[in-house]
């Protein structure tokens, strides 16, 4: 097990190093950030001074090694645009993204798996057919459009919920969260629904396909022959057997939603990290871009690692394979 963890850790470091090189070179290829942000009255001298102050006059490899040197000391650098440490900038916005994404992914999974199992268990009922029809919508309608319609309907026409932004926050363990307040919750509802729709549809389809397959297997036949109730079969046998692909997808979705909830965050003016990264790309704020993508790589590697551990807990075959 220890070897497994060490191997994963080395893998993570490798991925993050490659990521930093790609982002560094990519941003360098687009051009000099100074040309985007410099005001029109600037003379050549002023331009040169600004370039020098940001260290952009040094060759690319030197800039890279300076960055990596600082990184190893735990310093991700300062944002060109805000002149505050990148970690502070990202850390200040991470809770907003975290609460939005967790609420939407978890509720999508709980609801999606329940509906999916029902649809797989009674495939011919009209309820199941309705569920499946609606899930197609979740897949096929672009989320920015759904977001705009949600705002138009619930915020503008009905006036029930706010059109965007984050609500009142309370401090828990020194971090500002908005979900414990009523105002905060009312702000979360629409973006969370917007973010959850696609995942809900996917979870429904995944759970349904798994259920239909498992219900025809010998395991279920024997369980029924042994006189177990249908409820017990569903809970104890079926749920365990369909959960492996669902957990894999859950992990990947959690990671990608955390990293790239950009569309929803933009439409709902949600002050999360997705919006930060898009804005940073817009002005080539390289320290923020590189630091953020390195963190995302780290996040994905961690999530995959946790998923592997969870597999081992659920599936004895995986567990035995790992120890053998």
């Amino acid at each position, binding site marked *: 097990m220890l070897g497994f963890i060490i191997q994963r850790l080395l893998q993570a470091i490798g991925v993050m190093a490659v990521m930093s090189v790609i982002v560094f070179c990519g941003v360098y290829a*687009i*051009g*000099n*950030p*100074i*040309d*985007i*942000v*410099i*005001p*029109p*009255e*600037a*003379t*050549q*001298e*002023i*331009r040169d*001074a*600004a370039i020098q*102050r*940001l260290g952009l006059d040094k060759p690319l490899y030197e800039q890279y090694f300076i960055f990596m040197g600082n990184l190893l000391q735990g310093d991700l650098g300062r944002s*060109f*645009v*805000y*002149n*505050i440490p990148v970690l502070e*900038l990202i850390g*200040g916005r991470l809770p907003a993204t975290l609460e939005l994404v967790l609420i939407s992914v978890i509720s999508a999974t709980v609801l999606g798996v329940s509906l999916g199992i029902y649809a797989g268990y009674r495939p011919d009922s009209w309820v199941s057919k309705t569920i499946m029809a609606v899930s197609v919508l979740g897949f096929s309608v672009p989320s920015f459009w759904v977001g*705009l319609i949600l*705002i*138009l309907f619930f*915020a*503008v026409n009905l*006036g*029930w*919920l*706010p*059109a*965007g*932004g984050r*609500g*009142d926050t309370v401090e828990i363990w020194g971090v500002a969260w908005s979900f414990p307040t*009523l*105002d905060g919750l*009312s*702000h979360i*509802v629409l973006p969370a629904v917007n973010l959850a729709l696609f995942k809900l549809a996917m979870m429904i389809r995944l759970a349904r396909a798994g259920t239909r397959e498992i219900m025809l297997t010998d395991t279920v036949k024997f369980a029924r022959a042994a006189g177990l109730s249908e409820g017990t079969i569903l809970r104890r046998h079926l749920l365990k057997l369909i959960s492996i692909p669902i957990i894999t997808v859950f992990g990947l979705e959690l990671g990608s939603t955390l990293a790239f909830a950009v569309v929803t965050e*933009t*439409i*709902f*003016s949600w*002050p999360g990290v997705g*919006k*930060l990264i898009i*804005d940073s*790309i*817009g*002005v*080539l704020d390289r320290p923020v871009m590189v630091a953020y993508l390195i963190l995302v790589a780290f996040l994905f590697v961690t999530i995959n690692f946790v998923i592997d551990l969870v597999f081992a807990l659920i599936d004895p075959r995986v567990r035995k394979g790992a120890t053998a």
Partner: protein
Amino acid sequence: MKYKKFLAPLAFALGLSAAGAASAQTLTMGVRGGPESMDPHFSALGSHAEAAKHIFDTLVWSGTDLQIEPGLAESWAPVDEDTWEFKLRKGVKFHDGSDFDAEDVKFSIERIPAVSGPTTTTIYVRRVASVDIIDPHTIHINTDGQAATLPNDFIRLFIVSSEAAADYSTPETAAEGFNSGAAAIGTGPYKYVSWEPKGDLVLEKNPDYWRGDGAWEQVIRKEIPNDSSRLAALKAGQVDVINYVSSVDYLALERDADIDAIKGDSVYIMNLQLDQREDTPLVRAIDGSDLDANPFRDLKVRQAIDHAIDRQTMVDIVLEGLGKPANQMMPPGFFGSSEDIPMPAYDPTKAKELLADAGYPDGFEVDLYCTADRLPGDGAICQGLGQMLTQVGIKTNVNAISKTVYFPAQARLEYSMFMNGWGTLTGEASYTLGGLAHTNNPDVKLGAFNRIEYSNPEVDELLQSGAKMMDPDQRRATYEQAMEKVMADKAYISLVQLQTVWGAKAGTVEFTPRFDEDTLAFFIKPAN
């Protein structure tokens, strides 16, 4: 019907606090961009200065039409060739109760080079050599050579408190000191309460403001960069005023009785720029072979392009009416705009004749580059331009791209024909012509944004002499003459002047749109 009964009270409870946000004493503004720091000297970005104007005052004020007016300086006059005297306003107090005096001005000017970010504010003090305090309310600014437009440079020179900001004037400490509010002490109409990057800036009224009593007890400036979201926030009642309503939404708002759409002229003019180098990269014959020479060096070709453009259609169709045809690089009425420049006529037949005369009876092919995400309608204007030019035989491949890619490539001189907006933010011609029309020459600090290697010795001569003229009338005439020459050369072809739209809840507020597009809470009054 049951679910409605269940949902309605729930939604009412949830929506309650949102609706409560808009009270009479509070003005909530939804704006496209925000400050990058609470340090006013960090960035020269328009949205940064706009936010800073709420907390800090400038030495010289620029009015609604960008005319210069007294700010913290009551008057100014040149003492000799390279010295300006500024008389400071008496009895002005900072938010912490301390007095404003010459020490604060000197301190503010001197801290700029140390704390400025990449969008550098050193441009405002680029002509300042040194500052002498004569008495607490008189200062002398010694300039680096003659600087006739020094007061124009000072319209964004914010004055911070020399006491409060004393410990927060190095690159490492400035952001921390100002963002926490400790040093964000100004003389402006509102006091700092809280701010988070890309989030809300919360302000409260400064009861001792020297301009008089403000209308709002509290001002909240919310950053909502997405155009649709900003409008939705206004319609949902979360904000009272928004800026930059898109042209598409403007049409819908015209028919909406709940929302007032307020239209104002913008300083931004879209200019088509034609590379004047002997060798230009992105032009070729129709069959793909190389041309013998750069066609844009031929005046007839440039005139043909000018005649091929239907500016009125551009305004009416492409911009949905949110603009005006432009015949020069500055709006009419600005210092140095000429009234003698004719509006170019749309005449495709003549354009074809001119092209044939110039030796291109079959036309040629060119790649046109424009920004697509910087100003309202820029991408659409680019598309329209491509079609109009193709109709007279210049096969135009339209590339409307992100400003992130466009500006660095433009600075590397990679384009042959390109279009972007230019705003004369100072309201006078030395800013625009000095940057774009003078031969690029670092020795005289002119022409830094001339990316087409345009060079007309007569224009250079006029611009250099104009920069030294202390007599405003004489200077105005010189710049008008330079503008006429530049526009006659047609290396820069001005297309349209943009217009900007603000949205507000119908009948709630009154304000006059500003040319520089600033949305300033102090000048927004409740309608009664």
